[in-house]
């Protein structure tokens, strides 16, 4: 068991503090004119990505929030840049591929996230 949430080896047990965030997506129109639900943030990472190549300097294969758009649902819900998403609607995000993570986030209108944040949940 390791409590190092930010250098977590996917597949190993981990125990850490986390921040719960409830994000209600807002409706919007995408470039093609279709109705979409937008969250307002970008994610990067996944077990199929090489975190060493990440420009932000992430230290493991987790899913990280790389950007939060101003005034968006994500910003209002309290999500911050570089938060590591541990769980989304009960689904474990510490060992997922990038595409899987994207699919899961797109699936539901309301996201119940658990995130780890440096300096807050960990020193």
């Amino acid at each position: 068991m390791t409590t190092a949430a930010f250098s977590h080896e996917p597949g190993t047990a981990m125990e850490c503090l986390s921040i719960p965030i409830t994000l209600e997506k807002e409706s919007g129109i995408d470039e093609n004119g279709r109705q979409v639900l937008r969250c307002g943030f970008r994610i990067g990472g996944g077990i199929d990505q090489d975190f060493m190549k990440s420009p932000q300097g992430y230290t493991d294969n987790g899913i990280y929030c790389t950007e939060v758009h101003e005034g968006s649902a994500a910003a209002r819900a309290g999500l911050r840049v570089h938060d590591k998403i541990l769980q989304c609607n009960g689904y474990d995000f510490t060992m997922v591929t990038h595409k899987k993570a994207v699919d899961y986030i797109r699936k539901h209108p309301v996201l119940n996230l658990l995130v780890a944040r440096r300096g807050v949940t960990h020193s």
Partner: protein
Amino acid sequence: MLSHSESEASCVGTMSYQMPQQARPLSQGGYHNPADMPLQNPKEQIAMWQQNTYMSDSGIHSGATTNAPSLSGKEEEMDAEWIEGQTQQGFNQAAFTTEQVDDMNQQLNQTRSQRVRAAMFPETLDEGMEIPSTQFDPQQPTAVQRLAEPSQMLKHAVVNLINYQDDADLATRAIPELIKLLNDEDQVVVSQAAMMVHRLSKKEASRHAIMNSQQMVAALVRALSNSNDLETTRVTVGALHNLSHHRQGLLAIFKSGGIPALVKLLSSPVESVLFYAITTLHNLLLHQEGSKTAVRMAGGLQKMVALLQRNNVKFLAIVTDCLQILAYGNQESKLIILASQGPQELVRILRSYTYEKLLWTTSRVLKVLSVCSSNKPAIVESGGMQALAMHLTHQSTRLVQNCLWTLRNLSDAATKVDNMDQLLQNLVHLLRASDINVVTCAAGILSNLTCNNQRNKITVCQVGGVEALVATIYSAGEREEITEPAVCALRHLTARHPDAEVAQNAARLKNGIPVIVNLLHPPSRWPLVKAVIGLIRNLALCSANHAPLRESGAIPRLVQLLIRAFQDTQRQRSSVASGGSGSIGAYADGVRMEEIVEGTVGALHILARESHNRAIIRGLNVIPIFVQLLYNDIENIERVAAGVLCELAADKEGAEMIEQEGATAPLTELLHSRNEGVATYAAAVLFRMSEDKPQDYKKRLSMELTNSLFREDGSMWQGDMAAMPPDLQDFIAPPEGHYDPMYAQGPPSVHSGHAGPNYQGGYDHVPVDSMQGLDIGSQHGGPGSNYGPIDPRDLPPGHQGHPDLTFDQQIPPQPPRDNNQMAAWYDTDL
């Protein structure tokens, strides 16, 4: 003729007499009141007197100054005649005429008084006086000669009494006067009076007079408290100091409230005052009842700790002794010392000085403090362990012993300390000491320091600790107070650190295995037995030890102990069930039988890695018990039982025996255990048992296993697929017969809540590190994470190529092990 040496031989009780070295007043001019002398053996006293008498060579005894040529000539003649062969005893019948005899008689009569005076007052004799001796027979002293000794003693006593009486009279008359002067308002008067009292207190008789006057002592104490000039203070405290050598004096000082006054003086900047004060307080603490409380209440502790910063070693020795007296058995004092930074100062003293007495008294204070749980960490943090270690090679036994006791008390709080290398080396060296107490302490300290501390384990191994411990166990024989900590230390050294294997081998190379296994037998008591079981388990981790362990008869004995402990627990359980008032768990010597069960089965588990051992275990008819243990409440016991069955099931006979005992049912139950290890082993046993079952049985079994092992991943599988894809079963069922179930494709869990198959040693929280983590690698080498790359054949058709897509649907995602499949980093907008 009486010679000097002969007279010594006729002394009473001079066997062990030594010349008095203390400044006790002796007959040489001092005052001597036998009643007041520090209690001495009366014989010794007499001997001292006698020695003194003989030392001052009195003419009579040696005959040196006795010069009676005529008589001596006659004596010579007589001797010569004697030597010539007179065999008569008693008087030598010489031929004398009557006139000569009369003449001799008259001469002797006249000189009688001289002889008596010479006997009693030799100092009054004129030099060179000739006194005829009346002694005829050299063997028989005359009456005067015999009375010489006692009469001299008497003389001295009378002289002393006369002098003493003078002094006593003087003092008795002077004291009321002095008291009045001491109470005077004029400080100069007080000062003079105090000086007078100080002078008087130096002499025996007057000292007694002072002590016996409570008013005088009270006046002194008052003068001390009110004094504001140095000289007065100095002489007053000097006087009190002199009084403190006697019981009445101590009592008088105590009753007059001298202690608070003296404690106040501990802040004095003047050395002589300080020294007088501390010595007086020391005497009070040593001999006067009630002083300890008084000193504590007067705030003496804090002041004394502050005094530890001075650098006079004798002074420090007294201060530390005072602290030890005050702190012994008194928790509050210990806490006050802690609050005043006592531990730091004491450790500093240990590091800085070499005066043995000081080191000894300081180590005693630390020993007293080391049993206090608040002081312990402070001492350790101040570097106490290392400072004590510095003196373990000292010549003084009492110092070494005290250091060892203190170290032992501290050792359980010092498991996280660095720089212990010197200490550990010294301790290993001390294991070979001849003093049993030293060896016992050293073993105990090593056992505590190696518990859960990798660094220490490595260090001890490097300095030959394993060899030394084996030798210690050899020479200790049946002394459990030594063997138990030594075995515990070995147990720590043989597991859970990089050099563990070296240690396991070293124990064998030193022929340690037979003597260790022997300790499983009586008269060893349960705590020792439990420790030995853990050690055997660790030793069995090294395959080269399997044969020696087997040959020493470890396995039958372990099984015996298991059966016994198991029956005890069953008995306990049934007595509880039938309404008995038994406590939870059967205890013996403070050891629970459940622990013995777990330990023995764990050891057998490791031993069962080797095939001969397995044969023996099978032959001992213990498999039924293992199966029984699968029903046990305690998870650890279930785990080791399943583990040993797993090993035993590697052989066909073993597998058959296990199945015959009806193990299948409980094992299937255990598949659902929340303990990963238990479930893992249970699955492994079931697989091995199913080796030669028909194929469809195997398939059913594998489905069952997969279901139970994957049960908690429902959230993952539900969304994507309705039922387990058939190809997943292909992952589980082996293409060939021989595989390691845990390391096949298809990890049992993807949820990060599970530990996964890499279940390695999760027992760091166990303070006594007896149980190692799982290893199943009996035939398959060490456990490792071998998630193999996915064999494309196993993928469902239509999903070739893209790792992303295939990962999605059917195949559980795997942590990527080769970097070829990793994409460059990118992020997605949502």
